[in-house]
Structures are given as structure tokens and as C-alpha cells.
């Protein structure tokens, strides 16, 4: 123990307090108890301060408070010494403690006055309360805003068919928000999962490559964009775009990534469709030109360049009047207005002027271009060079005229020939008659008979010439075909022939179901009459007899038939009977032109005529009309 410490605790020369005159012992004890009580209090307060300081390290001015605690402790120790000296007169220690307490008091006082301005700047408790209240209100506002933002974000994600995600580097877990769950075709809930769960959803075809990119992007911890295809649980494939960016804490440390996944399947399909249309427009041989509502060219394809000679960059931005001859401008403005009112104009024929000034006959169609709200924002015109077509139309017309002329010449020729052929027959028959008349009915049969033969032969020959003329006319006499009920025609025929047939003891039956036929009604009536008359002549050897008119429809043809139950036509003659002047034997009447006429008429209808055996014996003549008329216009014009 050093000498000076021994000296402090040395009590030599002092006597304990009891030896000093305090009067009665009551006052001594009062003094001792009060001193000890003060000491206890002075010791307890610094202890409380120490506990407080340890528990609340963020208390302002902690060192000042420690000093204050020490000052209190030392003050307390002087009071303790006041009591102790009654038993142990360590006045030196007491003096030292008092000295220390005085020093601590001075230091504390100095520190207190030094800190006072700062302390005074601290807000009062009331103002702190007010501030707190204000802060909590602000916080409530912020929270409301946060909720709103979150709702907005959700709405935006829903509208953009997108879902949100976040990734935390420390937990290595992915947060899948409900919006994203929905996009993945999963129950619309919040979930956490691993990166591998995510990768497992990528289309197997590109999974490996995509996984590498994901690993790279996550490792790099910076903003990224990726695009791949995912497979939903139901097997549907969707194209998605994934965007991510870093999440950092207040200190700027990157703690994770967050971002969105957007479903771009529809965009992709639209883009593909758009590209497809663009390719069609680009490659179309026709001129395809888009105009804005004022008539300024906005699109110009290769077909337009080929037709008019202007390159795209020369014409886009110019008014389309550059192409329209002056006299056609009003007409075109009219079409443009009509198209902007969402009418489809054309196809119609008009004229345009090319780059070289040449007039081009074109066929034009104009249609409105409408936006998503169905508002016309421009006009698309499709234009086609028809000069070649016009040339060939002119050529065709010329050929038709030539043909008509030839046909007329032929008609005249035939008329003349038949007249000239018949004229001598008139003379022969006439004079044979004159001679027969002159010699009178009493002349010898040997003279009268040859004269009669001459007359008959001349008559027969005249008949042949007439028929020949008639056959040659079929197909050149253009009656327009029409669509009508074959049954009505058959009924008409039945009525007209009823007397004749009744006399011949022949019944004409008409089947219940008869098709509608596209034909020349006059010709068809002639044919049916011809066939019925043939059937009556050759198909009814045993009376009373029956003839049936009927019909049926196949996929390609409408067929009519006339059926008898007579001897029938041997198979080897079924074609031959359609030839001119062919008859089976000489038994029956007629010139032998009926079926030839029928066949010619059917040829003129682009149809067929043939003979079949009636199943129960007899002849059935079929007429087949094609269902597709050669000229569709005739259906409209034929009436």
C-alpha cells in the first residue's frame, strides 16, 4: 500500500465523533440517521441514472449524465463520512471525498452551463406531442397513399396482363404476387417459391437457355429484361416478357430484385398478323394505296410503284390528285367521301395518270380504314391495271360481232339454199299436180300412180330440207335460259296434247316430284313434245298405253326423262338414233330428225341426252342439264 493511501486512512490524532460535544445523544443519532438517509438517496439516484443510461444508449449527452451521477455519488459519500466519523474518525478520507465531491460539483456545474443553450433548444413535451401527432397523421396519409398505389399497381398489372414478383437475396425466395399467379394460370394467391419453381414453368424447348439467362441476370443484380414462353398447368403456352430491377435498403445495399411479368401473347399474335398483312400488301400485284382523310398518300406498295411509276418516297406525303386526271377529280373526291363514311366503293372502272403522263384505265376499290373506335381515319384504295382486260374485252366484242355476222351470213346462206333447193320441188310437185289434173281421174293408173309418186317424193324432200334448216338453226337462235319448274311445263304439255293423246288411247303421266331446271323454256318444251311424240309413235304399239314424264336431281345435274313401255331401242342403236335422218326401220312416220334436234338442243344447253332401257321394258330418254349455268348472269337476265 503506498504511503499516501495509508496516510489518508490514518486516524492518528482524531477521536471518533462520540467524543465531540453534540449535546445529548438524541441529536447525535438524528445527525447520523439523517446523514445515512441522505447518503442512501444520493447513492440510489446515480444508480437509477446508470440503469437508465445503460438501457437507453441513445439518450442525449450521456457523458454529462455520467458526470452528474458521479457528482451525486460523491456528494452522497461525504454524507456517509459524516456518519462514519462517529465510529471511525477518518477525517482525512472525509476531506478527500469532500474535495472530490467539490471537484465533481464544479465540473457538473460547468458542463451544465455549457450544455444549457443546447438543452434549451430541445422542444418542449407539448410541442413534441404535437409533432408526434402530426407525424402519425402524416403516416396515416402515407399509408393510405401506399394502399392506393398498391391498388393502382394491381389495376395496372391487370390491365397490362402483367403480374408482379420480388426476390430476396438473403432468403433466396421468390415472392409471387396474386397477379402473377393468375398470369401463370395458378390460383390467384400470394406465394413464395424458388427460382427453380419458376424455371420449371418455362417451355421445355427453351428452358435451358432461359435458365442460364435468369441465373446470369440474378447474379448480376441489375435491371434486366427477358422474353420466353411459359406453359400453364392446362398446357396452354403464353409468351411473356419479364422485367426486373434491383431493390436496395436505405443504406444503398442491394437486397433483392423485383419486377413484373407481362403476357405478350396477344401482342405477339397481333404483331404476326400485322407482319402477315404487311407482307401481303407489299407483295400484292395490285396497287394498294392508303390515304389520309384529306387525300394525302400515306402508304404506297410495290404494286402501286409498278402501276404508276412513282417510288414510295416520291409520292408518300403528296396529294393523290397527282394520280387523278383533272376531269376525274370530282369523281374521286366523291368516292373518298363515300369511303370515309364507311362505304366500300367499287369495284368500278376509272382512269389514272401515271408518272410518264400516260392515261391508265384501272379498276378501283376504295374502303375505309377504321381505328379501334370504328372511326374512319383514312381510305385504302386498291387499283388494278385493266388496259389488258379492256383490250381483250374489245377483242372479244370484235370477235363476237364477227361471229354474229358470220352466224347471220350462215343463216342467210341456209335460208337461200333451202329456198333454192325447195324451189324446183315446188315446180316438180306443182306440175305433177297440173298433169294429174289435166289427165283427170279417169286416166290409167299406170300414169296416175307415177305422178302421185313424184308428188310424194317432192313433198318428202321439201320436208327434209325444212328439217335440215331447223337443225342447223338450233344453238344459233339464242333464247335466254331461265330458272323454272319443269313440272309446270310438263303439265302445260299434258294439257296441250290431251285431245291428241286421248284419241290415240295414250295416257301421259307426270311424276309428283319434278326438279327446278335452268334452261330455255321454249326449247325444253320442244324437246319434251318431240320425245312424247316419239314415244307415242314408236313406244306404244299396244293400246291403251302409257308415257311417263319425270325428273330427278343429282349433285351436278338436273335430269328429266320421258319413258315409254314399248319395244325399246336395242343397245347398239341407242347412240345411232340421235344421228340425223336415222330411224329404226321405216315402219313409223316422221323424218327422223326428232332426236337429232333434241341432242343439238341439249348441246346448246351444255347438257346431255341419252337413251336407257326402261327397267320393265321400253325406252327412257334422259335429258341432263348442268346445275352450274355457263353464264351466271343469265339467271338474272333470263327472265
Amino acid at each position, binding site marked *: 500500500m503506498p504511503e499516501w493511501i495509508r496516510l489518508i486512512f490514518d486516524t492518528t490524532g482524531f477521536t471518533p465523533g462520540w467524543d465531540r460535544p453534540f449535546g445529548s445523544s438524541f441529536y447525535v443519532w438524528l445527525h447520523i440517521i439523517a446523514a445515512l438517509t441522505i447518503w442512501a438517496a444520493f447513492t440510489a439516484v446515480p444508480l437509477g441514472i446508470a440503469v437508465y443510461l445503460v438501457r437507453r444508449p441513445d439518450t442525449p449527452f450521456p457523458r454529462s449524465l455520467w458526470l452528474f451521477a458521479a457528482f451525486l455519488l460523491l456528494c452522497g459519500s461525504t454524507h456517509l463520512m459524516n456518519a462514519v466519523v462517529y465510529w471511525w474518525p477518518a477525517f482525512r478520507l472525509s476531506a478527500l471525498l469532500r474535495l472530490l465531491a467539490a471537484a465533481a460539483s464544479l465540473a457538473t456545474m460547468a458542463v451544465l452551463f455549457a450544455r444549457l443553450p443546447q438543452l434549451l433548444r430541445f422542444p418542449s413535451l407539448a410541442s413534441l406531442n404535437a409533432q408526434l401527432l402530426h407525424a402519425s397523421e402524416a403516416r396515416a396519409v402515407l399509408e393510405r397513399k401506399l394502399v392506393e398505389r398498391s391498388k393502382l399497381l394491381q389495376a395496372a398489372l391487370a390491365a397490362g396482363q402483367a403480374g408482379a414478383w420480388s426476390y430476396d437475396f438473403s432468403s433466396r425466395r421468390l415472392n409471387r404476387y396474386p397477379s402473377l399467379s393468375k398470369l401463370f394460370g395458378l390460383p390467384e394467391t400470394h406465394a413464395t417459391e424458388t427460382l427453380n419453381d419458376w424455371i420449371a414453368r418455362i417451355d421445355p424447348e427453351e428452358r435451358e437457355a432461359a435458365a442460364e439467362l435468369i441465373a446470369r441476370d440474378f447474379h448480376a443484380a441489375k435491371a434486366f429484361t427477358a422474353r420466353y414462353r411459359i406453359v400453364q398447368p392446362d398446357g396452354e403456352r403464353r409468351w411473356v416478357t419479364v422485367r426486373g430491377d434491383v431493390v436496395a435498403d436505405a443504406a444503398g445495399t442491394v437486397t433483392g430484385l423485383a419486377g413484373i411479368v407481362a403476357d405478350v401473347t396477344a401482342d405477339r399474335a397481333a404483331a404476326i398478323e400485322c407482319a402477315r398483312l404487311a407482307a401481303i400488301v407489299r407483295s400484292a400485284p395490285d396497287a394498294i394505296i392508303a390515304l389520309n382523310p384529306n387525300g394525302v398518300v400515306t402508304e404506297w406498295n410495290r404494286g402501286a410503284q409498278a402501276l404508276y411509276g412513282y417510288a414510295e418516297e416520291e409520292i408518300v406525303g403528296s396529294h393523290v390528285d397527282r394520280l387523278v386526271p383533272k376531269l376525274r377529280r370530282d369523281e374521286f373526291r366523291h368516292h373518298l367521301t363515300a369511303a370515309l363514311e364507311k362505304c366500300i366503293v367499287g369495284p368500278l372502272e376509272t382512269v389514272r395518270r401515271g408518272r410518264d403522263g400516260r392515261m391508265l384505265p384501272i379498276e378501283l376499290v376504295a374502303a375505309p380504314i377504321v381505328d379501334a373506335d370504328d372511326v374512319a381515319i383514312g381510305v385504302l384504295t386498291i387499283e388494278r391495271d385493266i388496259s389488258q382486260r379492256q383490250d381483250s374485252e374489245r377483242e372479244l366484242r370484235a370477235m363476237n360481232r364477227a361471229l354474229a355476222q358470220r352466224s347471220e351470213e350462215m343463216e342467210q346462206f341456209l335460208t337461200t339454199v333451202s329456198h333454192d333447193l325447195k324451189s324446183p320441188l*315446188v315446180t*316438180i*310437185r306443182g*306440175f305433177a*299436180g*297440173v298433169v294429174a*289434173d289435166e289427165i283427170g281421174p279417169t286416166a290409167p293408173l299406170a300414169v296416175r300412180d307415177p305422178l302421185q309418186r313424184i*308428188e310424194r317424193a317432192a313433198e318428202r324432200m321439201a320436208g327434209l330440207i325444212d328439217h335440215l334448216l331447223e337443225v342447223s*338453226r338450233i344453238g344459233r337462235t339464242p333464247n335466254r335460259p331461265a330458272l323454272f319448274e319443269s313440272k309446270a311445263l310438263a303439265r302445260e304439255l299434258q294439257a296441250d296434247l290431251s285431245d291428241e293423246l286421248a284419241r290415240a288411247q295414250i295416257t301421259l303421266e307426270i311424276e309428283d316430284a319434278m326438279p327446278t331446271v335452268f334452261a330455255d323454256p321454249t326449247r325444253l318444251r320442244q324437246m319434251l313434245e318431240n320425245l312424247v311424240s316419239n314415244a307415242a309413235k314408236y313406244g306404244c304399239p299396244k293400246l291403251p298405253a302409257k308415257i311417263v314424264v319425270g325428273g330427278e336431281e343429282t349433285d351436278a345435274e338436273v335430269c328429266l326423262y320421258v319413258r315409254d313401255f314399248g319395244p325399246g331401242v336395242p343397245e347398239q342403236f341407242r347412240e345411232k338414233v340421235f344421228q340425223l335422218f336415222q330411224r329404226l326401220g321405216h315402219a313409223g312416220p316422221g323424218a327422223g330428225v326428232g332426236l337429232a334436234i333434241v341432242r343439238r338442243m341439249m348441246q346448246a344447253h351444255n347438257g346431255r341426252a341419252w337413251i336407257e332401257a326402261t327397267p320393265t321394258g321400253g325406252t327412257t330418254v334422259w335429258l341432263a342439264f348442268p346445275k352450274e349455268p355457263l353464264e351466271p348472269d343469265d339467271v338474272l337476265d333470263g327472265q
Partner: protein
Amino acid sequence: MTFSTDNNLPPPQSLHFLLIEDDDDHAEIVMRAVGMHRMGNSVHRVADGGAGLAYLRAQAHNGQRQPDIVLLDLKLPGRDGHEILREIKSDPALRQIPVIILTTSPAEADRVKAYDNLANSYIVKPISFSGFRQMLADLSHYWSLWSPPHRSDSG
């Protein structure tokens, strides 16, 4: 052919014909048929339509007897039979004269056109000589029934 008088019909009248026919042989046959029943029938024959019209108009102009019947061929040099027919039937002074078309053409178009132009009959040659004569006899008989006053003195 017989022409009977046992059905109390008046006797047939003599008729005057105008025959417009370019073919001499055909004209000869018609004239023989017309003359055959020898009842004073007369025929004026011309070889083309212009001459036929001129004859008709001259007769009308001179107040002479008009033909009772015109026999008209269709195929004629110059203006054809259709035209002559139209002209006769559009002339108020001539239109009442019956016109019988005598032609080699059996064409429907010719027949329709002739009747459209108010032809009274259409006969396709060759016709049986006896049949034709019968027809003419029937016609003259018909005329006797009609008995126009201007021929009452010429019967």
C-alpha cells in the same frame, strides 16, 4: 276435189287475183290452179313487189276492180314480201284486200312476222296442186257468200 251445189250454197263467184311471184314456173302453177275451175277467175301476175304495189294503186286510182285476193311470195327481188305486205296493210285504200303468203320458208320467224304484219294466211310451198285448187275454190265460194256489191254485175 269436188264442188257440190247440193248444200244450197250460192254458186261460186269469179275472183280476181294479184299474184306477186318472181319464179315463172311457180307463177304458172298458181295460175293454172286459179284458172282450173274455169269460172271466170282472172289472175294478174307481177314478178316483183314494186310492180304489185303499183298495180294495186293504179287500180284504186282508176276506179277499176281491185283484186279479191293477193297471193304474195316472201322471197322477191328488191323489196321482199314482208315489206310489200306491210305496205299493203298500212294503206287505208288497200288494207281490206286479203293477202295470202305463198312461200317456201317454213321458218317460225317468217310465219310470226307475216301474221304480225296482218297477213290473212300463210301457206308453205310445195303444196299439193289439188289441195291448193280446193282451197281457192273454197275461197271463191266464201266470196260469193259475202257478195260485195261491186261484183254483183260481173258474176
